[in-house]
């Protein structure tokens, strides 16, 4: 695909428009997603209900009683002419991870697959530069892209059921801190006491899409004390 194919607008049912900026996971494509998300937040398109940013696209839902696809697409095109919002600086977050074998239940298997030992795996994970690309799958599941190439693994062939909340899981370039007991086919390398669903009314989700995340290693004793 050449760049002139994008942005592309697709009507979704009677009540949404999908704006596509590309067809792969890419930092520059995602930056365009974030830019449009911020502009629309500052200058809402009349009749729209919510904007959902993802890796390479945004979904904009609307009330079909109030507007239609053409009007929403026109409104979005106008906003694409707006320069980036001043002051839109990504926030940074520290997330504490305990890489104990009892919690990071796949560490041994990941060592087999990568040829790295446990400490090398941990160092690789800690060295990653992570950005919140999107939320998906389940409430609070923030997709952090930035796992170093040496630690990028395909998903497991089958999902494992009932993985507890708070596990740090990786697959490909992506990492998630889980928030619910859910199935996953990703690799469980640790556990975090940092809650992504904060339980705070004013700020129920720890990250905004576009934020930067750094992982900090903590010991089992520190983890248990939290």
């Amino acid at each position, binding site marked *: 695909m050449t760049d002139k194919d994008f942005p592309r607008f*697709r009507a979704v*049912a*009677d009540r949404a428009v999908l704006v596509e900026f590309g067809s792969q996971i890419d930092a520059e494509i995602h930056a365009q997603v974030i830019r449009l998300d911020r502009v629309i937040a500052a200058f809402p398109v009349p009749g729209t209900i*919510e*904007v*959902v940013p*993802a890796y390479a696209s945004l979904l904009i839902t609307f009330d079909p009683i109030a507007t*239609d*696809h053409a009007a929403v697409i026109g409104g979005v095109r106008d906003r694409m002419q707006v320069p980036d919002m001043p002051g839109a600086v990504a926030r940074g977050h520290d997330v504490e991870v305990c890489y104990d074998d009892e919690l990071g239940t796949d560490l041994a298997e990941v060592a087999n697959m990568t040829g790295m030992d446990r400490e090398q795996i941990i160092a690789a994970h800690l060295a990653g530069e992570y950005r919140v690309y999107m*939320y998906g799958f389940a409430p609070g599941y923030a997709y952090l892209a930035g796992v170093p190439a040496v630690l990028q693994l395909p998903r497991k062939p089958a999902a494992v059921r009932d993985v507890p909340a708070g596990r740090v899981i990786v697959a490909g370039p992506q990492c998630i801190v889980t928030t619910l007991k859910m199935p996953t086919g990703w690799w469980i390398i640790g556990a975090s006491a940092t809650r992504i669903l904060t339980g705070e009314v004013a700020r129920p989700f720890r990250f905004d899409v576009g934020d930067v995340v750094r992982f900090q290693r903590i010991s089992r004793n520190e983890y248990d004390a939290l």
Partner: protein
Amino acid sequence: MNMMRCELVVSFAGPLVSYQDGGRPGLMRFGVPGSGAMDSRALAVANAAVGNTLSDCGIEISLGGLQLDCVEGAVSFAVAGGGFEVTVGGVRLGGWTVGKMQAGQRLTMRAGGWGSWGVLAFAGNVVAKQWLGSAATHSQSGFGGGILRAGDRIIVEKPEVRAARDGDLMVPDWARPVDQVRVVMGPQERFFEAGIIEQFLTEKFVLSEAYDRMGVRLNGPKLAVNAALDMPSEPVLRGSVQVAGDGVATVMLADHGTTGGYPKIATVIGPDLDAFAQRRSGDVVGFVAISAEDAVLAARKCHAEIAAYLAYIAAPKGSLADRLMQANLISGVFGDDGAA
């Protein structure tokens, strides 16, 4: 009659009987689906019929059914959604109905002749735990009001008995399950050859047993994907028809995951979502493609019909005889097939 509270004890509840309200739109960007009643119009109907606000919290009943014992107070209630068999104090009521119950009486709802989901609303304020501003239960986490189980207590604050509302409600045509589901193709139909899209639109699909509040898997022709599945995860809308790598289609419903890495061949239009959700496992459906422009027109037409019906039932109608007469007068507008 107006007491401070009404208390009901759940003596039996099938799976996935839960507190639901109008849902929590606006949070998909944080991975949170809209949730709310699987048949959102049924919630509006039941609330309107008892004089509540349309999106107030009620109880959603699955085909497993529900049995409640009133242990304190008295309250009017309304039932809508699928055609369930409803009894109060051993007396059978209509499938769409307004009735009342008081301490010592038992309300039962059992699967009836059609429909998958019922809604029970009470005249008053149902006490339910909120999550992110809504009592709608997100079924995988249990967040919100939660799943109801035997032994749980339902509290209605400021319960009212509104006798002028008693009686059965007409079931409008738009509330019936649909065989032909209208969709707008896409947004990822480019992953499918023309022949596969034709199959999707001409062959029949059967709702499988894999049916819950997240969605329903369909049995039918395998919809082969024509390229490597390398698309990055994209946002998912309620009603998305998502095709997995094995060619099996799933229609995403109230508690759907907010993003998915599988292509969406088509998306069910808003006006057909509730009637689709009233289909049961084993039922057969077909998909009809319409343009996005026609889908907007369909949404507006449907909205106007439903608004008129809700306004009609929201007004107390006095005696049953008065209401029957009015129902006859407007039957040309709403259909006169009466509640079963």
